[in-house]
Each structure stands twice: as C-alpha cells, then as structure tokens.
C-alpha cells in the first residue's frame, strides 16, 4: 500500500472547521454588541448562572488541565489529582464565595471594570494602580505561555504523519541511523501556536467579552464531550480500563505511579493548597465575575465547579497513567496526551473531534486572558492617564485591541523560545503561585479595615521579589529539563514563601502606616445594618 494513501486529512479538516466555527461565533456575537465599552468589556453585566459557570470553568481550565495534567501524571503519578484538582475543587469555590461575590457587589455598586481601579479607590492611591498593572500583566504572560505552548505541542502531536513531506522531522538513533521522528509530518509548533493565537484574537476582536463568554460556553461543552470520547476510545484501544491500568501497574516505569510514595512529598502535597488561591487575583476571572447579572448567578458556579474539575481531571490523570505502560519512559510530558490520541484514536473523525476538544480547553482561557489585558491597559493606563472624556467608546475598544495584539506577539515569540524547555504544568504552577502571592492583598482589601496603601505596596513588592527570584531559579536555570523535578524549598512549594512574604508585607506595612480616610473605608464595607 502506498504510504500516502494511508494519510487522512479528516482530523485537520475537522480542526480547521472548528476554528472557523469559533470565528463565526465571534461574528454572530458582534451583532449583539451595544456599541459601548461596558458591553465590550463586561457584557453589560448581564450574564446568568449557566453562562457564568461555563465561562468561569472554561477560563479556569486551560492547557494546564488537559495537556499539563496528563503529562504530569505520566511523570509523577496519580497524586497529581490531589495536588491540583481536589484542592481546587475546595478552594476555588471558596474563593468564588468569599471573594468573587463581594467583588461583584463592589464592582456593581461603583462601576468597576478592573482590579487596579478597585485597589486605587480602596486605598486612595493612583500609584498602587500603576504598580499593580505591570505585576498582573507579567503574571498573566506565563499563563498565556501555558496555553500557546500547549496548543502548538498538541497540534503537532495530533497531526503527526499528516504532512510527511512538508513538515518532515528526523532523529538520529543510538546506532547512528537517521529515522523519522514520531512527530514527523505534524503541524510544527510555530505554525500551530500562531494559528491558535490568530483565531482567538479574531473572535475576541469581533465579540469582545461577549464573544469570549459565548465561545467559552461552547468550548467547555466541546471539551467535556471530547474528553469523554477520548477517554472511551483510548481505554477501549488499550483493552479496557482495567487492562490499561494493569499494564501501567506492571510496567517498571508506571508501577510506582499508582501511588504517591517516592513521587510526591507530604509537605509538597500539603503546600499545594495555597496554589488555588490564585483565582482570587486572576484579572480575567475578576472581569468574568463582574459580568454576573446578580449574586445568585454565582450559586451554580460555586457548586458545580468541583464536579466539573473532577470530570476533566480524572480521565486526564488516568490517560497520563496509562501512557506510562503504553509509551514507556522518556516521552516529553507536554506531548503525552497528543501522542496517546494520535496513536490510539484511529478513527480520523474522532481524532479530529478530540483534538478540537483539547484546543477548546486551551483557547477558552486564552480568550479571557487576552480580553482582560486589553481591558486593563485601556482602563488603567490610557483612560486613567489621559481622561475618559478624551476617548470615544470606539477608540477605547481600538486601544484595547492594539494592546492585545502586542501582548500576543510577545507571548508567541516567548512560547517559541521556551517550547522545548518549559514544562506546561510547572509553568502553570508558577503563574498560579504568583497570583496566589497576591491573595493576601485582596483579602486585606475586602475584609481588613485597617489595611493601608503602604501595606499593599509592601505586599506587592514582596510578592514580586520572591516570585521573580524563585521563578528565575527554577525555569531559566541552566540545564533545566522539561519535566524535571519541581523546585521545592524545605520540601514545600515556593508558593508558601511567596504567600508568607506577601502576607507579612501587607500586615507590617499596614500596621506601620495610616489607614485610608473613614469615608473611604466605609464606602467599601457594608454598614452593619446592611449586613444583617
């Protein structure tokens, strides 16, 4: 049989069709655009319970959840679920409940769009707003990198063999012979990542946050369904779930990964509890919270979020575990899911659907992150600096779009540089650790009347300094390998020290300085009568 005759372009066509469908969704959502910046940035605060759940969940689950979790389970075993997923189920919803609803109330009452504006007014300090902006942008970039690297790597794995002449890759074997690389013929990461960036840019440009909310809802449904299909197909091809687990358990590489002994330390496992606190300071989640029609819209999100996490993570962890038996040792963790899909889901149609589902998970976070960066730049820098009256709504939207393009370009080139050295899971954890470091700031701003501007600035500086030092040491250190061991300090995740430094900065800085005026404090704390 001619090799070319065995190539199926169906998955690529399905992926392409799905991407075009998303662009179409952006175009349709544009028809509902009311022409105001409030509508472009906050969907006119009109989002109900179902769309809020789907958009928040879709935003929270990224390449980290699917590509990262399966790769990390392949490296470190089933304990990865306890590290991230079960902690997140408990803590994410707690943060939505205690921080999200309160911020929604303050945002609605005073018309806030961004975190910087809230902090600026809460502490009577324009300087705090300007200081917070670059920190938030710098922390979102690793999150964007997670998505862009995951998309490129996954597309290459999922389309391997489709374009054997156009994207040929070879490797030199130990015996000196040159052979085709397992990923030969796949869409290379520079192209795959670029396509995904352009598609997300497209529907965000057309539809603003409404486009992102609609696309997130659609994509969350797609990746939940595709996950079920992928899981069923992969387990079926491996001889059933019991057989797949048995093969992993009996392999020298996979056996130890059925438990946590020797894979994950006790203090490491415990200290991961601080990482999900990051959702309290994600600027893109802040923006999604503000889209809620009313506080009751949060009820469904708070309850269903842990269940949805379980539905996505359990299959991914099992696929990563099964890969230990099927693929053996030595696979790049970022490519585990793509290789399992490519090698085991032999139906071209199902391969295409599954690939679209994984890309859906990745893109449903990228869109909100792109949007929040554009919103922050427009609201916190341009409008703040030059005055709102200076710009029409249309000009504000154009400015947001321009900044989004610049950030996407920077992220894209960084992703190309880091794609072979940065581990998607570790990069995600670093991003979350930075945002978790800012959590004491938002808690103090919402619940501590005595918190001050100096406390916020000290906490911010402590977070930035500790995060930068530890991140640089872990990610950019010479000789760092993808999937290498995580940086642990005294057996604990660095997030412990980042959060501790931040909290100490907030507390000490606040106690040593004067609080904002009583009128300002009263503005942000419901009076006891209202709280009964």
């Amino acid at each position, binding site marked *: 049989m001619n090799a070319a005759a065995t190539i199926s372009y169906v998955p690529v066509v399905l992926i392409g069709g799905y991407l075009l469908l998303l662009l179409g969704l952006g175009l349709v959502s544009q028809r509902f655009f009311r022409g105001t910046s409030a509508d472009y940035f906050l969907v006119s605060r009109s989002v109900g319970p179902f769309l809020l759940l789907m958009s928040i969940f879709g935003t929270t689950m990224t390449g980290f959840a699917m590509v990262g979790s399966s790769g990390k389970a392949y490296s470190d075993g089933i304990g990865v679920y306890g590290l991230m997923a079960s902690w997140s189920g408990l803590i994410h919803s707690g943060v939505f409940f205690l921080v999200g609803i309160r911020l929604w*109330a303050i945002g609605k*009452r005073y018309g806030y769009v961004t975190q910087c504006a809230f902090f600026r007014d809460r502490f009577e300090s324009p300087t705090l707003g300007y200081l917070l902006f670059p920190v938030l942008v710098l922390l979102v970039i690793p999150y964007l990198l997670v998505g862009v690297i995951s998309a490129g790597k996954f597309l290459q794995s999922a389309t391997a063999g489709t374009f054997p002449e156009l994207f040929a890759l070879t490797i030199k074997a130990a015996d000196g012979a040159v052979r085709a690389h397992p990923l030969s013929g796949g869409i290379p990461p520079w192209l795959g990542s670029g396509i995904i960036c352009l598609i997300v840019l497209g529907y965000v440009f057309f539809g603003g946050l409404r486009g992102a909310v609609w696309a997130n809802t659609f994509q969350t449904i797609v990746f939940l369904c595709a996950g079920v299909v992928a899981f069923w197909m992969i387990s079926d091809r491996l001889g059933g*779930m019991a057989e797949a687990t048995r093969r992993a358990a009996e392999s020298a590489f996979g056996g130890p990964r059925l438990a946590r002994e020797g894979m994950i330390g006790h203090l490491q496992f415990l200290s991961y509890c601080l990482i999900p606190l990051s959702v309290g300071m994600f600027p893109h989640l802040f923006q999604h919270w503000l889209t809620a029609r009313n*506080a009751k819209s949060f009820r469904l999100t708070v*309850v269903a979020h842990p269940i949805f996490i379980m539905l996505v993570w359990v299959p991914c962890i099992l696929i990563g575990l099964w890969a230990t038996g099927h693929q053996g040792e030595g696979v790049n963790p970022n490519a585990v899911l793509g290789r399992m899909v490519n090698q085991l889901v032999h139906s071209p149609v199902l391969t295409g659907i599954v690939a679209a589902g994984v890309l859906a998970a990745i893109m449903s976070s990228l869109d909100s992150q792109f949007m929040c960066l554009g919103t922050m730049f427009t609201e916190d820098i341009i409008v703040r600096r030059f005055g709102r009256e200076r710009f029409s709504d249309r000009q504000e939207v154009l400015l947001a779009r321009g900044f989004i393009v610049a950030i996407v370009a920077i992220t894209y080139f960084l992703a190309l540089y880091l794609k072979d050295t940065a581990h998607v899971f570790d990069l995600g954890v670093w991003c979350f650790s930075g945002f978790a470091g800012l959590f004491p700031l938002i808690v103090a701003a919402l619940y501590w009347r005595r918190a001050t501007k100096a406390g916020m600035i000290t906490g911010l500086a402590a977070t930035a300094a500790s995060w930068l030092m530890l991140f640089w040491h872990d990610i950019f250190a010479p000789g760092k390998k993808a999937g290498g061991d995580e940086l642990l300090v005294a057996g604990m995740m660095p997030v412990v020290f980042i959060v501790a430094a931040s909290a100490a900065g907030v507390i000490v800085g606040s106690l040593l300085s004067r609080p904002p005026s009583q009128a300002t404090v009263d503005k942000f704390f419901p009076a006891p009568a209202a709280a009964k």
Partner: protein
Amino acid sequence: MNLKRHSAAGRRLIWFLAAALFVLHHDFWWWSDRSLVFGFLPVGLAYHAAFSAAAALLWLAANRFAWPDELEAWADQAPAETRQPVTHG
C-alpha cells in the same frame, strides 16, 4: 439541629465542614497503597475524586445556610457618591 438560613450557626457549620475537608485532604493512610477500586482506579485517585464530590456538597450547603443575601441588597442600593459608570465612557 434547627438551622435558620444565613444564620450565624449556619456559617459556623460551613467553616467547620470546610476545615474538616481541609484536614481530610491529606490522606497519608493511602500514600503508598496501589490497590485498585472497581478494578481500574487507584485508590488514591478514587479518594480524591470522592473528595471533589464532597467539596461540591459543602458549597451546596454554603448556598443553603450561608448565602450573603445582604451583599446583593447592598450592591443594588444606589450609593450617595459613585464612580462614573463605564457605560457612559
């Protein structure tokens, strides 16, 4: 126990349950156990999947007993002095 909705007792119950779940997360008793549940699910993974379901039940109870109705009412009140809404940007 007769829990009135949004009562202080309800909130205390939610805090207590959240703290209990926090402690139960650290299942050291299954740390090195490789046995399987339903023939395919490692017990450490099965436990934490069940933990996720328990977390959902906790937040369902929080909706029932500790929902901050007062915040919604506060958000809807027109403040005497407000920041310029972005809709008039």
